[in-house]
């Protein structure tokens, strides 16, 4: 009989363990979400992240070791982003019909996300570096990190703020939009994609196929607009200090 500590030494260093646990943690989160009657507050991503974080802390495992296994899941984000083109194409007639509302909502949502985040942060006394890291947080992660670096923010801090923004959007979107009485799935999805990128889009797909497709468009367009506008807003922000 091999000592358990020896088996653990093998497992802890092997990608298999953390890949399996990532899928299992998400499976538990998804089961809880379904059991709750699909309540938005029971967010599968949040549950899986919390479970895995506790597990890493308890087993004293570094994020680098964890990521050796989890990178296979992380890698699929690329092809999944490309795959968004398919529901986009399936909704082509909607897109043609609502081009103007989309462009207007893109500017309104994107500018509100950036300026209100910085405004609230400033009012609560956050320093310059944190405000710069906050500025691009509604854009999809790879764009937000690149923008943060370009304007002198901290990319690793921005990564945290991007994920937190996505989970926030995924949780609040449904109750917020229901309270506003908005029934147009195109408008609902698009606004969520602009404000909370891929995690909001993943949530939108759980609710409605059209909302998901429009959320994907909102995410893609806001990636472009944030990359263009944040470098223009940042110097103005810095001039206030």
């Amino acid at each position, binding site marked *: 009989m091999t000592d358990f500590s020896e088996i653990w030494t093998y497992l802890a260093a092997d990608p298999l363990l953390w890949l399996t646990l990532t899928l299992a943690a998400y499976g538990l989160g998804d089961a809880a979400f379904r059991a709750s009657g699909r309540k938005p507050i029971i967010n599968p991503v949040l549950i899986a992240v919390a479970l895995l974080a506790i597990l*890493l802390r308890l087993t004293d495992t570094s994020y680098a070791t964890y990521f050796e296994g*989890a990178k296979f899941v992380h890698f699929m984000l690329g092809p999944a982003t490309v795959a968004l083109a398919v*529901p986009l194409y399936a909704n082509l007639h909607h897109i043609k019909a609502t081009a103007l509302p989309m462009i207007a909502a893109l500017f309104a949502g994107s500018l509100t996300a950036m300026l209100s985040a910085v405004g609230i942060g400033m009012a609560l006394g*956050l320093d310059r570096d944190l405000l710069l890291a906050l500025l691009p947080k509604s854009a999809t992660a790879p764009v937000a990190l690149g923008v943060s670096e*370009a304007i002198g923010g901290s990319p690793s801090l921005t990564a945290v703020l991007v994920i937190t923004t996505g989970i926030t959007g995924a949780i609040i979107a449904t109750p917020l939009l229901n309270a506003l009485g908005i029934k147009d799935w195109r408008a609902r999805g698009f606004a969520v994609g602009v404000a909370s990128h891929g995690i909001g889009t993943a949530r939108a797909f759980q609710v409605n196929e059209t909302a998901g497709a429009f959320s994907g468009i909102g995410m893609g367009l806001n990636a472009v607009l944030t*990359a263009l506008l944040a470098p223009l807003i940042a110097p103005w922000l810095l001039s206030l200090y």
Partner: protein
Amino acid sequence: MIIHLTILLGFQLFGEVAARALSLTLPGPVIGMTALFLSCIAIPRLATYIMPTATVLLAHLSLLFVPAGVGVIGHLDKFGSDGLALGAAIIGSTVLAIVAGVLTFIGVRRLTGAP
């Protein structure tokens, strides 16, 4: 399935190469998505063809954010006293951005008489 994945990865590869060759600030997958979207308009059969794999991938889109999310945990303690202010900025700005986006969409749709 294999061919579908090959097509998706091929468009991502194209996007990554284009982003670097043209020094674009956009991420490769977003360029790949745009290229695939345009290809589907040119060749409608392509969309029908890769639909099954795209649907499966997108149905589990949330799962794919878990590894990056776990990375967040290592940074939580460094927020310290700024944590509350950052939380307020994120929640406040996300609510305001969704409200601004959705009301603008509906408003302009009515103004332009779109369906």
